[in-house]
C-alpha cells in the first residue's frame, strides 16, 4: 500500500480544558493510482485527517506509513514525505506571495533543494498541466482571475512532483466555469500523470463524476468506505449523518418506489438518461406490440 494509517487517534489541545478528540481509530489503506474522495460535514475530521497524510499533524497515537515506512520515524523522512504527498489547502490562492506566477510556483521545488534549471522545468510543466498560459507566467499572481489564481496555487504543489495529491475543497467559492475548469484539470492530472488523488469535497455531484472510491467521515471516524456506487446507494445512512447523495440517486430511488424497474446506484444525469430512455422506449415498443 502506498499510504497506510494504522490505528490513528488524534486529540486536540491534550491536557487542557479545550481537549477534543478529533480522530478516533482511523485505519485506512490507499493504493497507488486510486482516486479517493473524502466526504463529511464540517467538523467531521476531514481536514485533520488529510493533514496526517503528509505529517503536518502528528497522530496522538497510531502510525502513518508511506510506502511502508513510518513518516515520523525521523526528520529527513518527514521532509521527503511532505514532498511526495502534496497537500492543497482550501482557498490555496491565499498562500500566493511571490512577484510573479512563475516564481511562486517555483517556491516548492526550490525548497526541495533542486537546481534552478530543474526547478524551472518542473515549474513550467506544472503550470502547463493546470492550464496557465505562458504569457501569464511573468504576471503578478494577484492579477489573475479567481479560477486562474486557484490553478496557479495548485501548480505550486504539483511542481514538487508529488506521488499523491491531496486537494481540500478545490472548487470552493468559484463560479461554475471556474469549478468546471478545476475539475477537468484534476481529472486530466490523474489520467496523464497517473498519480494518486485524494479529494475532499462537499459536492456529491463532483465526487460522483470523478472518484472511484468514497470515504465518509463523521464525528472523527470513518463510517463508510467503498466504491462510489456502494456509498451513494446508502441514501438513508448518509442523510442520518447530515450528508446528501447526488440528486440523481434520489430520483432513481423515487422511481423505483413508483414501480419502475431501474437500478438505484446511478448518480450522473448521463447514466440516468440512458437507463430511463431504454426503459421507456422498451415499454413503448412492448405496449405498441400488444396493440
Amino acid at each position, binding site marked *: 500500500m502506498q499510504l497506510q494509517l494504522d490505528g490513528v487517534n488524534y486529540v486536540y489541545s491534550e491536557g487542557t480544558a479545550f481537549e477534543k478528540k478529533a480522530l478516533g481509530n482511523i485505519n485506512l489503506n490507499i493504493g497507488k493510482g486510486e482516486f479517493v474522495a473524502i466526504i463529511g460535514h*464540517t467538523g467531521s475530521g476531514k481536514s485533520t485527517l488529510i493533514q496526517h497524510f503528509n505529517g503536518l499533524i502528528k497522530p496522538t497515537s497510531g502510525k502513518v506509513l508511506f510506502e511502508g515506512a513510518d513518516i515520523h520515524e525521523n526528520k529527513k523522512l518527514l521532509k521527503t514525505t511532505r514532498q511526495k504527498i502534496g497537500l492543497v489547502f482550501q482557498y490555496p490562492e491565499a498562500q500566493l506571495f511571490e512577484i510573479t506566477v512563475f516564481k511562486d510556483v517555483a517556491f516548492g521545488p526550490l525548497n526541495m533543494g533542486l537546481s534552478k534549471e530543474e526547478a524551472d522545468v518542473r515549474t513550467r510543466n506544472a503550470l502547463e498541466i493546470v492550464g496557465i498560459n505562458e504569457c501569464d507566467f511573468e504576471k503578478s499572481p494577484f492579477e489573475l482571475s479567481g479560477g486562474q489564481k486557484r490553478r496557479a496555487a495548485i501548480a505550486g504543489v504539483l511542481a514538487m512532483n508529488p506521488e499523491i495529491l491531496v486537494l481540500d475543497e478545490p472548487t470552493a467559492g468559484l463560479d461554475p*466555469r471556474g469549478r468546471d475548469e478545476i475539475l477537468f484539470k484534476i481529472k486530466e492530472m490523474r489520467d496523464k500523470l497517473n498519480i494518486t488523488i485524494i479529494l475532499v469535497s462537499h459536492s456529491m455531484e463532483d465526487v460522483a463524476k470523478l472518484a472511484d472510491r468514497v470515504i465518509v467521515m463523521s464525528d472523527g471516524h470513518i463510517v463508510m468506505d467503498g466504491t462510489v456506487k456502494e456509498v451513494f446507494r446508502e441514501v438513508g445512512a448518509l442523510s442520518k449523518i447530515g450528508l446528501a447523495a447526488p440528486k440523481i440517486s434520489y430520483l432513481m430511488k423515487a422511481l423505483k418506489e*413508483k414501480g419502475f424497474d431501474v437500478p438505484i446506484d446511478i448518480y450522473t*444525469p448521463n447514466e440516468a438518461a440512458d437507463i430511463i430512455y431504454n426503459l421507456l422506449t422498451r415499454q*413503448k415498443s412492448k405496449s405498441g406490440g400488444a396493440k
Partner: protein
Amino acid sequence: MDIIKINNVGFGYSYIDEDSNKTMKTETLKNINLNIETGEFVAILGHNGSGKSTLAKIMNALLLPDSGEALIIGLNPSNESNIFEIRRNVGMVFQNPDNQIIATIVEEDVAFGPENLSIPPDKIRPRVDSALKNVGMENFALANPAYLSGGQKQRVAIAGVLAMKPKCIIFDESTAMLDPNGRKEVLDTAIKLNKEDKITIILITHFMDEATLADRVIVVNDGQAVMGGPPKSIFSQINELKALSLDVPQITELAYLLSEKGLNINTDILTIEEMVGALCNYN
C-alpha cells in the same frame, strides 16, 4: 410597485492603463435595465466578472451610476441626502462571513446598524432581540462571533441588516463560502424573511439549485441583463446557459438529455417530484 428600478445604468471602475499611462474606465455595466418588484424573491446569476456584484452595489448606493438612472424605494441615490435612507432600506449580506462582523459580541454587532441610524438606546434593544430571534440566533446573543460556524456568522450578519428594518435584502454570494448545512441555514432564513416578513430578497449565487427557489431569475452577462423569467423558463434554455458558462440543475439537465434522445418530455422540470410525475405519466 417596483422597489428597485434600474434604467440604462452604466458603470465602470477607474484604472490606470500601463501602456498609455492614462486613466481608463472599465465597462462593467453597459446600459443595464431591470426592475425588482416589492415582495419578490429574485435570483441573479452570472459568472465572475459579469457585473452582478457591481449591480448589487448600485442597488444599495454603495456605488453610484455613471450614466442612466437608478430608483431605489423611489429615491435617486445621486441625491446625497437619499443615500442613508436607501442603505437602511436595502440591506446587504456579503460573501465572506468573517469580513462583515464588526463587534466581538453578537448582540453588539447586530446593534451596529441601528446605532448608526441614531435610534435611541432603549429602542435598539428590542430591535436587536427580535432580529436575532428572527434568524434563530437568540441563544448566541452574548457569544463571540469568531467562534461561530460559517452559517451562524451569516445569520448574525442577516440579523444585523434586519435590525435596520429593511424592505429589501441583497445576498451577494452569501452562500459561496459555506458548507451545505450553512448554505441551507442561510437559504431557509432568506425564504422565511420573504414569505413571512414580506421582505424583498435578491439572491446572487453560483448555485443553480438555490436559484430554482426564486420567483424569478435574472441572468447577467457582460454588464447586461440577458435573460429573465421564472426559473422553469430560464433553466430549460440549457444551451443558452451553457454558452454563458452557467450550469443547470441536475434534474433539468436530465430532462434535457431525455428530450435530446427524442423522448417527449418538458425541459422545464426542476425538481425530483416533477420528474417522477412526468415519467409516471409518460405516454
